[in-house]
């Protein structure tokens, strides 16, 4: 792409605070400020804050919002409660298998409008936003629904780490702080953060406790600075996309374009939980690609997603071939040094017969074999997960 990258409302802050800016999925984003390892460890030990405003934020409102989303998403939406978020896939019924995965997304039922109209928010990947928006718009009903892309009007700040929630709560009134600290995982509420109206959800992409905060673009820098200043004495570091990637990799979370691609079998990559073939009553649901996904679920996949732990710090990268039993048995989808573990790890798709914990493999890293063992995912689990 030769177009000028888009800028989040926080781009000037990143540039004036040492962010090393790169074009990521068409956005001008910091890959790191100081050091990926330092930013990663700050998130594990204290707080990391991330500008994730490049992620697509869609607003869906109207009396038919439930039914419309229920007819399009792989996760059940009909029974989603106010303040609940669900991880879902967005699919079409195109492609040789009868299903194409357009994206993975988080769908949240927000507080109803004052007149009782249901409101939903969807967060999609920056790299897929255009095609997901085009797809959803093409399926809009004639009436009863409003659909808006709010990405440019808002900003999204992820605050992650063991001290993250307490830090955000310092910036809220007592009622809001109590509600935020009491949020379960994948729950959301509205609150005033640093005096600004915000949508706050107990979600993230790091394997740590934390929240994601959506505010209006015009106040994004004020809110970001307030969180930064409140967290700095507790060890907060602003983090770039580099640490975001190493954190999600350690947490065993798939990334669209790597573990998850358009032709993926979600059951083979551990995303079966993102597909509800039946409704709450046990009857079949209808959404694009549903029958193809039912066939995938019934079949044994040829390759499945595994974790690989290396002895060395030398990282395999996407596409590195994995050898075992004298043959090529798969390839790496993501790999890096795992800063919390002190050695390299990777996620890979491997032939099912060798995809068992303990299998030893050789991964070809720039043609040089590196020993790696199949291990359970995630590589890292935070010491005392909340319930």
């Amino acid at each position, binding site marked *: 792409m030769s177009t000028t990258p888009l800028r989040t409302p926080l781009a000037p802050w990143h540039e004036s605070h040492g962010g090393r800016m790169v074009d990521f999925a068409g956005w001008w984003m910091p890959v790191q400020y100081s*050091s*990926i*390892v330092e930013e990663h460890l700050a998130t594990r030990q204290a707080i990391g804050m991330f500008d994730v405003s490049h992620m697509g934020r869609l607003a869906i409102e109207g009396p038919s919002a439930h039914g419309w989303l229920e007819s399009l998403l792989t996760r059940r939406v009909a029974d989603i409660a106010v303040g609940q978020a669900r991880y879902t896939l967005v699919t079409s019924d195109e492609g040789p298998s009868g299903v194409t995965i357009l994206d993975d997304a988080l769908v949240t039922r927000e507080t109803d409008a004052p007149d009782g109209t249901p409101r939903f928010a969807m967060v999609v990947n920056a790299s897929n936003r255009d095609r997901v928006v085009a797809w959803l718009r093409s399926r809009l009903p004639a009436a009863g629904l409003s659909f808006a892309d709010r990405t440019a009007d808002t900003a999204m700040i992820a605050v992650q780490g063991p001290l993250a929630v307490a830090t955000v709560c310092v910036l809220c009134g007592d009622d809001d702080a109590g509600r935020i600290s009491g949020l379960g995982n994948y729950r959301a509420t509205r609150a005033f953060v640093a005096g600004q109206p915000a949508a706050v959800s107990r979600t993230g992409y790091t394997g740590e406790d934390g929240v994601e905060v959506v505010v209006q673009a015009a106040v994004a820098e004020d809110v970001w600075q307030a969180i930064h200043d409140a967290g700095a004495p507790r060890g907060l570091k602003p983090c770039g996309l580099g640490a975001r990637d190493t954190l999600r990799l350690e947490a065993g979370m798939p990334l669209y374009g790597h573990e998850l691609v358009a032709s993926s079998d979600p059951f083979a990559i551990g995303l079966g939980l993102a597909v509800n073939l039946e409704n709450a009553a046990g009857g079949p649901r209808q959404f694009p690609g549903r029958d193809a996904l039912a066939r995938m679920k019934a079949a044994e996949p040829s390759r499945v997603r595994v974790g690989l732990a290396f002895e060395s710090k030398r990282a395999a990268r996407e596409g590195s071939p994995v050898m075992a039993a004298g043959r090529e048995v798969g390839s790496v989808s993501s790999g*890096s*040094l795992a800063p919390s573990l002190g050695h*390299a790890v990777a996620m890979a798709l491997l032939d099912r017969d060798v995809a068992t914990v303990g299998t030893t493999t050789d991964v070809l890293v*720039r043609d040089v074999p590196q020993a790696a063992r199949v291990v359970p995912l995630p590589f890292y689990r935070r010491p005392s997960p909340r319930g």
Partner: protein
Amino acid sequence: MAEMKFAKSHEWVRPEAGGLATVGISKYAVEALTDLVFMQLPPVGKKVKAGESLGEIESVKAVSDIYAPISGEIVEVNAALPGQLDTLGADPYGAGWIVRIKPDDPAEMAGLMDQAAYDATVKS
């Protein structure tokens, strides 16, 4: 001490007594890489041409080649360096040296940049 010269690819080379030349990577390059995790040195005795890869350096984000700034034979490597990559950042022009080369043609160094010219290229 003889003048240090720089390649566009961020390696430095310094002539030493006895006709050898010491090679390393610039402070700018080390700071740009950050989070170094791995380094691959060439075998002693390997012959390299200017611009050829003589090793690799890997950070959390990426793998980079280290290119020979001049042609010659690798006569010594800093074998301790891969085990203590912090040295590269702490002393890139001293203890962080990478290899010593016996140059094929000592005049080849004249084609490289001096410190001021190199500094100008990385300040853009």
